[in-house]
């Protein structure tokens, strides 16, 4: 879509450099001249917000790692040391823990936007799948990071999740021992989790690079889901139009971030994690962080452990297949009333599963969780394929420019 860069640096040094390594041309074609559909709404600013969150997490994480001690006997105290004695250590640590929350909030909005507007459909299947990989890496990184403070809930979480591997027939127990580096979660587990927690964000960053690259080949989808036909009429330049909009959206996101860090920093943290891990004392109520609750509810909803684990991973893996599950040529839910209805049902199901995941399991709740789990998979495996062929869609606009002008009847066409 962007094609070879036509960028020519103004200075002689710039031209000398550009003819040897066209890095400025890459930046120019990707972030300045890059054509952006003119009908994008604020849901399309989450790419910038997520980039910002990733950078914030990596920077604060690097600083925390300078003071953190990954050892079963020292880890908890080292966090305490960061919070009390390191200059602005409390700030960096609150930025990092609450940053994880906002990172996930942003990624969920970003993913739901992709589903709502059909951003996973041709030609963006690979772009979408890379996104699913990033999301999976994020959940792994978040889980590993949650273990590091070595609080009560860290320990319980590490035990529950690593124990999932023991559901694998025959080799399960060996795999669990291999993961733990011993016969139970302990010091060796913490050390390797720290190592991996430091590694994975850079893997995520690499996949983000691929994600942006793929995006810049196929171009952005848009709220009307019609492809760009005429670059002149349908698009605006990334800079200044998308840049300023993204910067504004990031500044609003920053306000939420600052609210969490400075005014309610412990709102989303589990109180139990301020108690040091003790293998003999399990918290009365083991719960993951909010962003993993729906998956936890799915895991608990299924009575068979192995099937539960398979369902847990399938709940994420199924996302990678939706480009082939939803074959309806109309992308945007704006023109798909039935899909739009089921989309919102799906959102309610996810929230419901999340709420159940946070509660102590009772028979009634487990039963509801089973219905909702069926609903979760039903949305992808039944509703999407069925609506691909049966839905009566509304007429889509001929072009992006037509869609924009239809919204503004007063503006005369130039």
């Amino acid at each position: 879509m962007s094609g070879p860069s036509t960028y020519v640096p103004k200075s002689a040094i710039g031209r000398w450099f550009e003819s040897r390594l066209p890095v400025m041309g890459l930046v120019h074609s990707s972030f300045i001249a890059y054509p952006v559909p003119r009908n994008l709404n604020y849901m399309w600013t989450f790419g910038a917000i997520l980039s910002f969150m990733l950078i914030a997490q990596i920077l604060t994480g690097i600083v925390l790692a300078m003071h953190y001690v990954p050892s079963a006997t020292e880890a908890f105290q080292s966090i305490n040391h960061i919070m009390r004695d390191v200059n602005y250590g409390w700030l960096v640590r609150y930025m990092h823990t609450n940053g994880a929350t906002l990172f996930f909030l942003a990624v969920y909005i970003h993913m739901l936007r992709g589903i709502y507007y059909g951003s996973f459909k041709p030609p963006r299947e690979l772009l979408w799948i890379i996104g699913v990989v990033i999301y999976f890496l994020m959940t792994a990184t978040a889980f590993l990071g949650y273990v590091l403070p070595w609080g009560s809930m860290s320990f319980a979480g590490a035990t529950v999740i690593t124990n999932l591997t023991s559901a694998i027939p025959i080799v399960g127990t060996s795999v669990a021992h291999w993961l733990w580096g011993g016969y139970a979660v302990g010091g060796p587990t913490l050390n390797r989790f720290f190592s991996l927690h430091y590694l994975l964000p850079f893997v995520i960053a690499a996949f983000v690079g691929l994600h942006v690259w793929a995006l810049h080949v196929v171009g952005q989808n848009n709220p009307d889901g019609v492809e760009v036909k005429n670059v002149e009429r349908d698009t605006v330049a990334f800079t200044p139009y998308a840049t300023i909009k993204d910067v504004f959206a990031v500044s609003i996101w920053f306000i939420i971030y600052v609210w969490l860090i400075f005014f309610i920093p412990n709102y989303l943290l589990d109180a139990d994690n301020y108690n040091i891990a003790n293998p003999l004392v399990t918290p009365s109520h083991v719960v993951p962080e909010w962003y993993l609750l729906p998956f936890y509810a799915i895991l608990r909803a299924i009575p068979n452990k192995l099937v539960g684990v398979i369902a847990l991973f399938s709940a994420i893996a199924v996302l990678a297949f939706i480009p082939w599950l939803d074959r309806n040529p109309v992308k945007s839910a704006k023109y798909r009333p039935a899909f739009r209805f089921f989309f919102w049902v799906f959102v309610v199901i996810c929230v419901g599963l999340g709420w159940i995941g946070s509660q102590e399991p009772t028979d009634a709740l487990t039963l509801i969780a089973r219905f909702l789990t069926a609903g979760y998979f039903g949305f992808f495996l039944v509703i999407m394929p069925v609506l691909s062929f049966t839905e009566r869609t509304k007429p889509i606009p001929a072009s992006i420019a037509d869609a924009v002008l239809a919204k503004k009847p007063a503006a005369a066409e130039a």
Partner: protein
Amino acid sequence: MIRFKTALTSAAVAFALAGGFALAQETEEQPKPPRETWSFGGMFGTYDKAQLQRGFQVYKEVCSNCHPLTIPFRTLSQPGGTDFSEDQVKTLAATYQVTNPEPNDKGEIFKRPGTPADNFPRPEAYPNDQAAAATFGKAPPDMNLLAKARKYERGFPWFVFDALPGLQYQEMGADYIHAILTGYTKPDDPQWNLYYPGHKIAMPQPISDGSVAYKDGTPPTLQNYSKDIAAFLSWAAEPNLNERKRIGLGAMIFLFVLAGLLYFTKKRVWESAH
């Protein structure tokens, strides 16, 4: 599809009912700690120095007999807290006997008077958690993070409101501690507590009216003791709260101005595109 919708609706109804039932059940068996007003609550709240000093007195005279408080003495002279003078802290530290972390040149572990850099030593009677657990059945927890390590279930929809500006609720730990200390409502059973989950608490009633003689004229009542110690422990767990809120306020004002300017810039830029 209609059948599916019906199933969904009934599931939603059952879900709401179950949720409501669960909540109702909880309140019957286990009352929630009452919500108090704290000087350090809300967006602008800061610690009340006099209250923290009283709370420290309660800790020193009562709690410290069983509970460790692993914070350095110097913390007591930090601004935004109990705010004792450095000399006061030096004198206070010297009244404690601290085990030196390193042996002397004869290879003997020895005790010496504390300095501001040392942590509060463990209670003399209980040199380790096992010794304390042998007496009480359960080791009294370290109080350095206690106020952040205790919360209670708020339930829907309250937990949503707790996050919102103006309604935010971060003082759950203080309310919990206050509730526990005032929850010994069965005089014949010193280990029965109204607010403790399951009511059977390992800590026998630790403090009652008149246990501590305040010097500043504050009435020596259990209500005051428990509020003061809860405030003190909140500070011990989060000594940077005053500074945190001050920086946060500045950051907020800056961001609102920045976001406002960016909004108008964005509007201006996009005018030409439509």
